[in-house]
């Protein structure tokens, strides 16, 4: 009898593995809270955003790895020269998960819903460029043009957040065009998503995607338990973990820990420069002084903050955007160096004097201020304590105060009764248009001195001008020139003293294939339709 050859064995193994990849496999991970909505236009928090990403079909997708745009439900698109109109050419003969046909009418319906002021859609807010109505024109069943009242910078990127809803389906938002649909929802406990049989994407060998049949999402608020479950093999990945948990995974199962490098999230501190704040005038004068802020910045050892407070899973921060933002980051800028001599020299030029180890201003006031941060965040508490010791090196006395979050927000947004604050910024969008609400002097989130009627300083006026210019220009390279200058001014003036940029950390089970964690959300499952999970 003829024995089977190596080729035959290999073929059988290949067939087995392809079957293995495609049948009965389940991907499990945790949501930190219950999704507040399944309506993709009303998404505000992380859990709902996860559901939208897994179930929603979008016209254009931002590739989380390359950070470039890729066709989704639209095969092509074109933005008009005036930046107000975008025309999409849609894929043929697509169906929602409930078998209703997809057409340009669904796009028009979604846009109409999104821009309806009575819905208060957070997604729609990004598109509200000016007074007037958004018009949608169905050019054919596969072509649709959307015209906004005013030009929108980075218009095409914004469609990554717009999951198309069916105009006709009785199942409304439960009829989806994404890789999965919601099959079961046990409130407060778990969600089960099943593979959408009508999903449009196929792999290189024309096999329908996604590979994984079922995604089970357990609601798990406790991060300790989430990590324990991961280490016990009960869930397949932890999308974003902090430095301590990462070290724990590295110690126990080093192959499962993934550090994707600097993320978009940064930690920073700022001084209160609000003219009406109830703090002494001499302190307001310190905080308004660029030399004072630069001196504080130079006296902080950022390398130590990253190494000690974040156990090496962070980098000294540079400025508004981190190097993770490949296109918009200004490569000419470097983190401020740790140099206490230079810091003292700046302070002396500003009239400060060191007397018996205590720094005093021109009028003889001892330099003492408090830094507030939110209680319970151990990384921020560690950083504040380290900054306290660093600044003692230049004779400054710092009092660290941890407050519960509502009290902290009350102080930094309403009564402005604080001196310095240490918090973090979570950037989810790569485009500078998304941070207009922070950098315009009239903005509510212009935290060091919000809601200014006219810019308080010449450099804030310059930032206002540049931010408005970049927002009204459609040429990306021109926009980058404007925004590079904004980053330089922010680096020179340091209204925000950027401290560290956290690394994107995650843990992925060895049973998951094709996982390539990145720094953009959703870090691990951004390529959900490509992931392969072992059959359980």
């Amino acid at each position, binding site marked *: 009898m003829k024995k089977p050859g190596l080729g035959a064995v290999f073929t059988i193994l290949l067939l087995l593995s392809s079957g293995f990849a495609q049948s009965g496999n389940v991907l499990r991970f945790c949501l930190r809270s219950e999704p507040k909505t399944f309506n993709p236009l009303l998404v505000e928090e992380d859990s709902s955003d996860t559901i939208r990403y897994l179930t929603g079909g979008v016209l254009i997708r931002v590739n989380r790895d390359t950070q470039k745009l890729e066709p989704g439900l639209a095969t092509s698109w074109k933005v008009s020269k005036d930046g107000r109109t975008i025309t999409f050419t849609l894929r043929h003969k697509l169906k929602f998960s409930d078998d209703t046909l997809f057409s340009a009418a669904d796009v028009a319906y979604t846009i109409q819903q999104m821009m309806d002021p009575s819905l208060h859609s957070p997604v729609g807010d990004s598109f509200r460029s000016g007074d007037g109505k958004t018009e949608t024109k169905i050019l054919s069943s596969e072509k649709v043009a959307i015209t906004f009242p005013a030009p929108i910078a980075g218009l095409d990127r914004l469609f990554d957040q717009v999951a198309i809803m069916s105009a006709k389906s009785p199942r409304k938002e439960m009829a989806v065009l994404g890789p999965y649909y919601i099959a079961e929802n046990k409130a407060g406990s778990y969600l089960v998503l099943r593979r959408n049989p009508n999903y449009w994407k196929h792999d290189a060998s024309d096999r329908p995607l996604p590979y994984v049949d079922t995604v089970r999402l357990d609601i798990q608020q406790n991060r300790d338990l989430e990590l324990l479950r991961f280490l016990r093999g009960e869930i397949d990945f932890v999308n974003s973990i902090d430095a301590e948990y990462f070290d*724990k995974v590295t110690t126990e199962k080093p192959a499962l820990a993934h550090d994707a490098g600097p993320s978009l999230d940064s930690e920073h501190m700022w001084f209160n420069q609000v003219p009406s704040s109830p703090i002494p005038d001499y302190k307001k004068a310190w905080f308004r002084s660029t030399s004072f802020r630069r001196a504080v910045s130079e006296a902080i050892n950022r390398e130590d903050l990253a190494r000690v407070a974040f156990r090496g899973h962070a980098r000294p921060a540079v400025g508004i955007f981190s190097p993770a933002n490949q296109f918009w980051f200004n490569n000419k800028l470097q983190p401020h160096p740790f140099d206490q001599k230079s810091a003292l020299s700046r302070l002396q030029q500003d009239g400060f004097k060191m007397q018996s180890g205590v720094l005093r201003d021109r009028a003889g006031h001892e330099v003492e201020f408090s830094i507030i941060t939110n209680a319970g965040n151990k990384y921020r508490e560690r950083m504040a*304590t380290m900054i306290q010791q660093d600044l003692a090196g230049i004779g400054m006395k710092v009092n660290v105060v941890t407050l519960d979050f509502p009290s902290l927000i009350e102080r930094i947004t309403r009564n402005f009764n604080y*001196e310095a604050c240490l918090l973090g910024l979570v950037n989810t969008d790569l485009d500078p248009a998304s941070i207009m609400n922070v950098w315009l002097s009239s903005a509510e989130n212009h935290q060091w001195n919000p809601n200014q009627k006219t810019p308080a300083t010449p450099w804030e006026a310059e930032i206002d001008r540049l931010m408005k210019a970049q927002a009204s220009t459609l040429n990306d390279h021109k926009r980058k020139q404007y925004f590079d200058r904004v980053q330089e001014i922010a680096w020179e003036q340091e209204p925000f003293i950027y401290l560290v940029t956290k690394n994107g950390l995650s843990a992925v089970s060895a049973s998951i294939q094709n996982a390539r964690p990145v720094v953009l959300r959703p870090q691990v499952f951004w390529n959900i339709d490509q992931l392969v999970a072992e059959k359980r």
Partner: protein
Amino acid sequence: MNWPRTLAVGFLLTLALMCGLAAFIAPSGYAHQFRDIPSAPPSHQHWLGTDDLGRDRLSRLLYGTRVSLLLAPGAALLSSLLAAIIGATAGFLGGWIQRVVMAATDLFLSLPWLFLLITVRALMPLNVSPVFSVVITFAMLGCLGWAAAARVVCADARALSNSDFILLARASGASGFRLLRRHLLPNLMPLIFAQFWISIPVFILAEANLGILGLGVAEPLPSWGSLLRELESYSSISSSPWQFAPLLLLIAVVSCFHLVITDRELPA
């Protein structure tokens, strides 16, 4: 001889002595950050290792114990005094005064004290030194911890006011103040004393709880609360059992206080 009590007193005295001499016996300052060796395991230089900022754990434990052991009795004294004044007066006077005071006490007891502490802490001035912050924290605990004890004192004072020897004293013409000072308070002292001893471990634990919430003693001053925060996370403790030292010390101290209290309560 009551040897467990003797042992407990001996332990507490030794600990108090060690903490009193912390400046001389601690290997380094409680705030000094050895940033090259954060989260280090025990070594010759650092017997209990270093914390996540590289601070010597043993030094922080000694100074932290000093803070908690000094101020918890202070807070207990404050709350016991308040309880004695309010409870004894209400119990002695009786009638509508007692009813009003006890209703106010019940209202005070029903307050969510943790949220009250958080609110009071949030309203405090920001620029206070760590030493001042720890004094304020314990003073707040003392001011908020009198109500339960006042109820007990009031009940006892009421019972004593109706007793034969008080009636006899009253019949012999003793004034209200004299009755309170010479007859009632001396008989309430064992109870007030027991309340004082009971409060000490309660306040130590309350400060530890506040510390775990990040609302206790300000950095860099250590207290048991801030030291126990290291045990918050499963990931950090499972590989570093020496982090349990403050917890073990807290259990030992609270147990010793209870041994001392039990012994003092029995004769009363």
